[in-house]
């Protein structure tokens, strides 16, 4: 018969395995946000040769049921008194059920919001392999589009105006 000590050792191993798994997911997710922020900074810098945008990073504490608490990066873009924020929302979220060209999307591997406090664009990470793919959905018409330079610039312009 299994002793209490043996039982608790199995439980401890399981807890450690789950902790490692959670840490792995958090690392993968936060890296993905860092990559997104890196890409967005490139697009912003390219659009701003006179450096009138003030760009800074922020940290957001998130607590999710499946992976617990963690810190995720965000971005703040200021233009005079206006401010647009890129805010990580969650790794686990209910994805949009929508079509994007031929593709049917109903899964999401993370959500980040782009907002000026009122108007908002929701970014869903719909693919992780071979690389991340994000879609951008505005909250007026809910029309999804692949996140690319043009889509991002249009969204930021809409938020600043």
């Amino acid at each position, binding site marked *: 018969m299994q002793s209490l000590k043996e039982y608790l050792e199995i439980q401890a191993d399981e807890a450690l395995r789950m902790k490692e798994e959670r840490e792995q997911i958090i690392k993968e997710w936060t890296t993905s946000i860092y990559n997104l922020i890196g890409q967005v900074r490139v697009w912003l810098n390219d659009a701003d040769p006179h450096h009138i945008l003030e760009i800074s990073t922020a940290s957001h504490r998130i607590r999710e049921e499946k992976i617990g608490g963690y810190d995720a990066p965000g971005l703040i873009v200021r233009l005079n008194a206006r401010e647009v924020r890129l805010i990580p929302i969650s790794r686990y*979220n209910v*994805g*949009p*059920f929508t079509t994007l060209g031929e593709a049917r999307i109903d899964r999401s591997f993370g959500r980040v919001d782009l907002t000026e*406090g*009122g108007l908002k664009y929701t970014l869903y990470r719909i693919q992780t392999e071979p690389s991340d793919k994000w879609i951008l959905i505005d909250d007026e018409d809910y029309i999804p589009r692949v996140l690319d330079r043009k889509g991002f610039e249009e969204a930021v312009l809409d938020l600043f105006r």
Partner: protein
Amino acid sequence: MNTLEDAWNWYKESKEQHRLIQRLARNYWDDLPWEGKLDRDDHFKQADKDKILHSVTRGMEHLDDLAVLVLFSAFESLVRSRIEGQLRIVRNTIEHPVLGKALEEAIQRIEEGSFHWVLEPFKSKGEEFRKHIEEVNQVRRYRNWVAHGRRGKKPEAVSPAIARDRLNRLFELLIKMDASEPDPETATGVGPASV
């Protein structure tokens, strides 16, 4: 709000009104014709642009979560009253006291019991139902987290548009199921009842 459409329209209109006030405060506040009627209006005379902007932004931060709550409440109410109405029609046809009592208890559970219990039996209708009910359960879990003050760890996040989409799809499936099944009124000869 009695329908999902009502709830959705409330959300869209509230958001639009918030945005208009936010835009007015941010872009046009200083250009308003303050001298005259506006500076004689006590509400406007005391108004501070930054405070308005701060308040509106705070209000909008919570509007999406509130919308998920409102949408789900409308859906829950629709489903409960639909099923309750159907069971009442059947109840009127049953004379056996044991069966009648069992149905009355079932009706009470539909009215007052956990909504999870209300939806679960429909999973037996097949894979499509199972899938949609699970999707709606995700919305329900998020709604519960919001309703309990956003305490504890956050379940899978749900936006209002996704909530509406999922709730609509399950409700349409329920209607489709009813349309494909024999009408209890016709089958039993019982008079019309409001469902």
